[in-house]
């Protein structure tokens, strides 16, 4: 089970794990929600390129400007709209501040997709929590810099009384992808770019992947002969066909403000790290990254986000774990149960016949 354990959790190179002979660099998104204008070009460009049918019943959902609701079989990019007044904003700043207090998070040196901290991301002034080697630093010991305190103080006085968050969500293309690992047919596979893609000609619509995704991304399209790939599991392919021709995925290409960035995942993570530092250095302590940590419950994601509040505010799980991480243990428990079943049956038949 050791082999399986390694394959199911912790930092790893998913392309190598899938035994690609000619691997490419792992590709990914960095979605910087701080510059998203909520235009939904990503939703449309995605649907147009992938010929995704209309989603929903054309009802106004009454949730701000969001009328597509969530990621699903026919919405592979979804823009969330969140309206917040100052108390919520203060909470977001406070929770972001706590991330520093906790010394969170630290990228372990083994982080496979993280570049050296000095490489090309410019100076990162007042970066508490990381020393020059990139390792963790004990902040409680008084390392919390005066600069950080000052920016916090500055930030405290300037909480706006309202804000409107917009964020384009997408498949996370997890390092450890629950959907992929539970797929019984091989319809879901890991591409040479490290992304996770459904093969619509293979999928038989068992729906298992839907349940296995810790982010609620993949969904089975309802059976309806008038639409393509009906009855199939559907989700973002990171435009696998375009990637094979070195083209940018449709959403990232359309995004008017470059809120959605696409590229080599290590560069995306570096860009995200640089951006979050800039924001936080300027007092925006609510800024944080999501999915940029290979030690997390899914081994890091292929879609990194910069968020301005706790993940659950955006409908993202705060501490997701891929269910398959516990699979070896599950099999062990099931094995014991199976033995118990056999034993009990045997016991029933042994002994007296009446």
């Amino acid at each position, binding site marked *: 089970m050791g082999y399986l354990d390694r394959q199911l959790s912790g930092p790893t190179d998913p392309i190598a794990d899938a035994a690609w002979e000619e691997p490419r660099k792992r590709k990914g998104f960095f979605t910087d929600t701080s510059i998203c204008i909520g235009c939904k070009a990503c939703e449309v460009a995605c649907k147009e390129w992938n010929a995704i049918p209309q989603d929903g019943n054309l009802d106004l959902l009454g949730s701000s400007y969001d009328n597509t609701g969530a990621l699903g079989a026919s919405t592979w990019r979804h823009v969330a709209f969140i309206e917040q007044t100052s108390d919520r904003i203060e909470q977001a700043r406070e929770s972001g501040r706590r991330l520093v207090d906790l010394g969170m998070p630290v990228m372990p040196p083994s982080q496979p997709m993280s570049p050296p901290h000095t490489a090309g991301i410019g100076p990162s002034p007042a970066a508490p929590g990381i020393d020059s080697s990139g390792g963790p630093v004990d902040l409680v010991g008084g390392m919390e810099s005066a600069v950080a305190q000052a920016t916090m103080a500055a930030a405290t006085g300037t909480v706006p009384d309202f804000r409107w968050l917009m964020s384009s969500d997408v498949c996370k293309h997890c390092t450890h992808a629950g959907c992929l690992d*539970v797929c*019984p047919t091989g319809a879901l596979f890991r591409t040479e770019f490290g992304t996770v893609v459904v093969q619509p000609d293979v999928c038989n619509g068992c729906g298992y992947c839907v349940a296995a995704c810790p982010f609620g991304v993949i969904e089975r399209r309802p059976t309806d002969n008038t639409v393509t790939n009906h009855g199939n599991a559907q989700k973002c392919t990171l435009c696998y066909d375009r990637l094979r021709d070195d083209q940018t995925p449709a959403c990232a290409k359309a995004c008017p403000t470059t809120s959605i960035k696409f590229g080599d995942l290590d560069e995306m993570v570096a860009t995200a790290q640089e951006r979050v530092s800039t*924001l936080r250095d300027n007092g925006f302590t609510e800024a944080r990254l999501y999915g940029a940590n290979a030690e997390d419950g899914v081994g890091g994601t292929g879609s990194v986000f910069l968020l301005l509040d706790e993940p*659950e505010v955006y409908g993202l799980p705060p501490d997701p774990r891929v269910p398959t991480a516990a699979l070896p243990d599950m099999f062990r428990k099931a094995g014991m149960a199976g033995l118990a079943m056999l034993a009990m049956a045997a016991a029933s038949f042994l002994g007296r016949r009446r």
Partner: protein
Amino acid sequence: MTTNPLDADRPPELPRSGRRRGNGGGKRRDESLMVPDAKFESYYGRSVVKAPPWTEEIPTYLFLGGLAAGSGLIGAGGSARNLPALRRRGRFAALAAVALGGGALAKDLGRPERALNMMRTIKLTSPMSVGSWILAAFGTFASVAAAAEIGRQLPHQDGLLAKTLRVVDPPAAIGSALFSAPLAAYTAVLLSDTAAPTWHESYRELPFVFVGSANAAAAGLALIMSPADQNGPVRKMAVSGAALELGAGQLLRRNMHPLLAEPLHQGKAGRLLRAAEILTGGGAIGAMLFGRNRIGAGLSGVALLAGSALTRFGIFEAGMESAKDPKYTVQPQRERLERRRADGVTNDSITTIR
């Protein structure tokens, strides 16, 4: 005002009583009227993870699979102990249940015509793939065993067919016995290896519940169908199976996060499971006390069967509910995260600031 990185000198603004609300006369408004603030724990109350697109076919299969597995054991036990009534009925029941169960599975697919794609790969990480192979193997053995059973009835026992069937009879009996335990147990893993919180968090106990339930159901069926003079083993099996099902079920509830246990107690699932407990318990007691009486055995058997079925439906329903309400996803994750943070473990969060 949001996030200009270089905007360090935003004007001082009064936190809440500023222009936006203070101007409006300061009347406190009814929060329920508004575009709902995205709640701390969720995005407009929408689910974070998705419930699988499974309908009643799946719990039906869980039940039938268990019934088949338990019946397979009874058939094998009957064969080993030369109890023809149990052997015959066990074998036929196993085949019927496994066939019906397989049919239910196929019916639930989004693309039933691609059911055979289940055999396209062997995915050790996919309980459904593993289960499909188990099901196939069990089905094969059960078919052969049933055929052998028919072979015993053939008028020309000297024919090639009858001879062959006699030869394959013992291996088929052993095979279906061996595969019955995995068949009964894997369905627990199938449910647990998902992001549906209640299913996932019950992975330690659920296999025991399911194998117990399988034995109880099969014994129940045997109690109904078998002559009272041969039902001694199945009475024992009924009692032990029910005891395991009920005991493991209690353990499951006790060990689980109280919030995640909630769906097991509430609503439809709660009602189903309460009824299941009564029926299973009653069936077991009935089998114990009145099992030698044909009518008593029959009624107990019905209760056991129903109890097992309701257990499956109840567990299924509880898991589906836990996936639909975001609180079951977010709150335990949030607590888990805070607990780790309190313990000083900060390197494995998906939220990072760098």
